[in-house]
């Protein structure tokens, strides 16, 4: 009995001593990384999955532990802006079709704080200024290349993928073009019918061009109103709309210093209510947007980015003399306080849509049938808030043959469009196409990858066509690199190691069912305005899931790989 007790005591001492030795030896260290993402669907329903796949790919190299954290959008934005987030997911949709809008906002010192990176480099700032203030294509190309190279060298961001846009529609419907900038209802053609139904989960905030700055408001504004210049039906090239042509340096419409843009209106233009549309009305309309400067609106694109100014001494309109109307009342010149290489794109944006003389000059125009008046292909003839819009052909549309050289003789093609708003999400859109009779001819946007796949599978039996096209929307990771910020990741080697670890193929395969395009620069490659400048710098420098390279850096930094016995015991305890 005594011997048994002694034996037990000895064994216990040995065990306790072994555990103590193991626990006291320094544990293999892993880098602790918090990855933040938005949790209320601001970027869609796949955000949780995306964050998880990223976590797995970074952890797969064995030297990092990623903790996922999330906030709703309003809190996420505030935390980001206050520099509280070290590493997080964001998305970007450009306001104008110029490569500048994929680089300058992120890399310029004035813009990077609003992305939460706080990246700042004086040389980069100069390159941004150079490309923004010149119309010389060679200089712009050189600066865009330098900016992308620097992006890969300093890694304040890791580009992930460019998104997709999608539409599913009854197979005999024609001209459902997934244009990267402007989805055009007025070219859609349902054969043997003068009308069609479209369903979407989007909704509007306002049909007043001075206020509209969300996706669907802009889309509807583009159907009801007109801008001086607009986009081709399929490509992203600009063509004249209310103006006869797009001003360039070559045709004399843009001054050599890039500070003066002159547009010549077509004669005898009218709004849908018969009132005149001339250069005076154009000036008044642009000034109205600048003066109202609605919170959440896009007017700052005109007066700040577009260098038209907003002058309190001039009634909060553009700077005196910035917008000049010629005596013929057809020619209008914009005098910018500094050169803006992409000013034409800003004039094509919905905030530059022309509104009638009698529009409310100091507040939003009500979204009521009869008071929403534009000069676009459609007029608003029905509106049930949160449920439905009805658009009908504008009998006084000024340029019905605008797309005749593109094979569309007259626009709008169909006389009536009924837009049904479905707050039930992607499932409701799928149901609209699955029931008999169908509740929609066209379903546009916000289909989840799974619902998209279901529709593709059932396309033949349901008589549908499902189109997926590249979108200018990009997703990326952001590092907070703010000097002196305790949460910031200021060690370049850490950022590089994580850049090596990211697996874009897994994101495309596991989250988006092979519908997105892996992105190796903040500039997406698939569009006419960006393709000439695109450089896959992250593919060249870092590739995907390059754990060997990542671990070389982690080892240099003193981080170990895999679990040892100590970790197993500690985890169980």
């Amino acid at each position, binding site marked *: 009995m005594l011997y048994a007790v002694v034996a037990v005591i000895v064994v216990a001492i040995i065990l306790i001593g072994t555990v103590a030795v193991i626990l006291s030896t320094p544990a293999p260290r892993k880098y602790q990384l918090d990855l933040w993402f938005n949790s209320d669907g601001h970027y869609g329903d796949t955000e949780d999955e995306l964050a998880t796949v990223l976590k797995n790919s970074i952890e797969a190299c064995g030297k990092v532990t990623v903790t996922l954290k999330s906030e709703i959008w309003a809190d996420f*934005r505030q935390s980001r802006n206050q520099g509280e987030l070290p590493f997080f997911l964001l998305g970007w949709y450009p306001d104008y079709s110029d490569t500048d809008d994929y680089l300058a906002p992120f890399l310029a010192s004035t813009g990077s704080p609003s992305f939460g990176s706080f990246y700042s480099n004086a040389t980069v700032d100069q390159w941004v200024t150079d490309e923004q203030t010149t119309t010389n294509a060679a200089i712009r190309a050189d600066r865009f290349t330098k900016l992308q190279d620097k992006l890969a060298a300093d890694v304040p961001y890791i580009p992930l993928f460019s998104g997709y846009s999608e539409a599913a529609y009854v197979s005999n419907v024609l001209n459902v073009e997934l244009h990267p900038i402007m989805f055009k209802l007025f070219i859609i053609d349902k054969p043997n019918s003068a009308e069609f139904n479209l369903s979407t989960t989007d909704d509007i905030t306002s049909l007043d061009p001075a206020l509209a700055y969300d996706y669907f408001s802009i889309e509807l504004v583009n159907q009801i109103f007109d801008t001086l210049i607009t986009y081709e039906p399929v490509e992203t090239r600009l063509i004249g709309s209310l103006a006869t042509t797009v001003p360039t340096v070559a045709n004399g419409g843009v001054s050599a210093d890039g500070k003066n843009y002159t547009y010549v209106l077509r004669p005898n233009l009218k709004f849908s209510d018969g009132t005149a549309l001339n250069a005076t009305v154009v000036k008044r309309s642009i000034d109205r947007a600048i003066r109202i400067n609605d919170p959440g609106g896009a007017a700052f694109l005109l007066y700040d980015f577009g260098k038209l100014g907003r002058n309190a001494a001039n009634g909060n309109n553009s700077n005196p003399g910035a917008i000049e109307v010629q005596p013929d009342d057809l020619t209008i010149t914009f005098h910018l306080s500094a050169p803006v290489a992409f000013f034409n794109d800003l004039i094509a944006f919905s905030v530059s849509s022309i509104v009638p003389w009698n529009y409310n000059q100091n507040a939003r125009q009500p979204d009521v049938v009869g008071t929403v008046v534009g000069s676009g292909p459609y007029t608003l003839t029905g509106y049930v808030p949160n449920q439905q819009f009805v658009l009908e052909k504008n009998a006084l549309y000024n340029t019905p043959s605008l797309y005749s050289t593109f094979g569309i003789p007259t626009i709008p093609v169909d006389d009536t469009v009924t837009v049904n708003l479905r707050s039930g*999400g992607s499932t409701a859109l799928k149901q609209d196409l699955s029931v008999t009779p169908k509740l929609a001819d066209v379903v546009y946007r916000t289909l989840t990858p799974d619902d998209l796949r279901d529709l593709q599978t059932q396309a033949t039996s349901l008589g549908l066509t499902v189109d997926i096209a590249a979108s200018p929307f990009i997703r990326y990771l952001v590092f907070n690199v703010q000097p002196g910020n305790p949460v910031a990741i200021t060690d370049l080697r850490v950022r590089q190691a994580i850049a090596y670890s990211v697996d874009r193929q897994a994101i495309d395969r596991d989250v988006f069912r092979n519908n997105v395009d892996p992105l190796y620069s903040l500039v997406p490659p698939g569009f006419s305005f960006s393709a000439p400048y695109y450089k896959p710098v992250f593919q060249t420098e870092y590739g995907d899931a390059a754990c060997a390279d990542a671990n070389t850096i982690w080892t240099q930094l003193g981080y170990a790989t895999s679990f040892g016995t100590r970790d197993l015991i500690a985890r169980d305890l």
Partner: protein
Amino acid sequence: MAGSRSLLAYAVTRAALAIPMLLILLTAVFFILRILPGDPVLALYGGREPPREVLEEARRQLGLDKPPWVQYVSYMSGVFRGDLGLSIGEFYHGRPVIGEIANRLPATVELSIGSMFIASVIGILTGVVGGARRDTKTDVAVRLYGTIIYVIPIFWLGILFQIVFAIWLGWLPPHGRWQGTNYPRTVTGMYTVDSLLEGNFDHFVIAARHLVLPCLTLGLVLSGFFTKTVRANMIRTMTADYTEATRARGVPDRQVVRRHAFKNALVPVVTLLGLQFAILFAGAVLTEKTFSIDGIGLLLLQSVVSKDMTMIQGVVVIYAAIIVLISLIIDILGAAIDPRIRL
């Protein structure tokens, strides 16, 4: 006469107490929203962030640059004038809060009334049957039903109904409140009522068909509560002394249930209806989302995620006012039915 006066006094007292309660609630919500993290102005700019000066001016235009107590006084003075302010969130910003609520409240009311009707009828029927046949197989089935139906996720049941009745069978529309562009003339905003007011039976049928699945979904889930409550009350009344005395006098069991036990079993259920309406409004959010019904449940959800403080305040106070009103009506009804409540 004394009884009528005491009932009237009871009702007036309850109504008078509701007003300060609503004011306290509104004050609490107002300041809690301003303490919580999140910047509604930043949330307005979903993508590109404008320059700082633009953000500051936006704050000034929205009145958010003023001290919280100044904002409170301004807001409350508006409330007393019937003005719940303008939305400051990214979804409805610039629009009057009262207007957005008025647009959407009828949909939720229509859904709630239909759902409560289904919940009450099914719940009471099953509860009575279960209670009257205690410890039989019928009772077991009723109890199982009451438990299972109450825990089924509303959205799961809703999607199931959509698949079966809308897509497979094609009997009913899968979602929404209306089909087509010829809407009923707006009087109440409830399409069923407005159709009847304009004497258009075809319109009424369209509106009613769109209500069937969502009301069935929400109503069935809520019926579980009524099933269990009514059953418990039935058992209590069936075993009460007066019921035993009734049986002893030779009254048939069916008459005992119908004439005595049933009515007495319902008295506590009536008083619980007020609580159920609060639960129903909460459940309506999921039903509205599943069936694409733009009611105030979805409005509140969108307002919360966009930090639309004025809209949240407006919806909360309307919700509270509705619940208080319904509870008041139920309490008065209960007091009228059962004088013991007034004492």
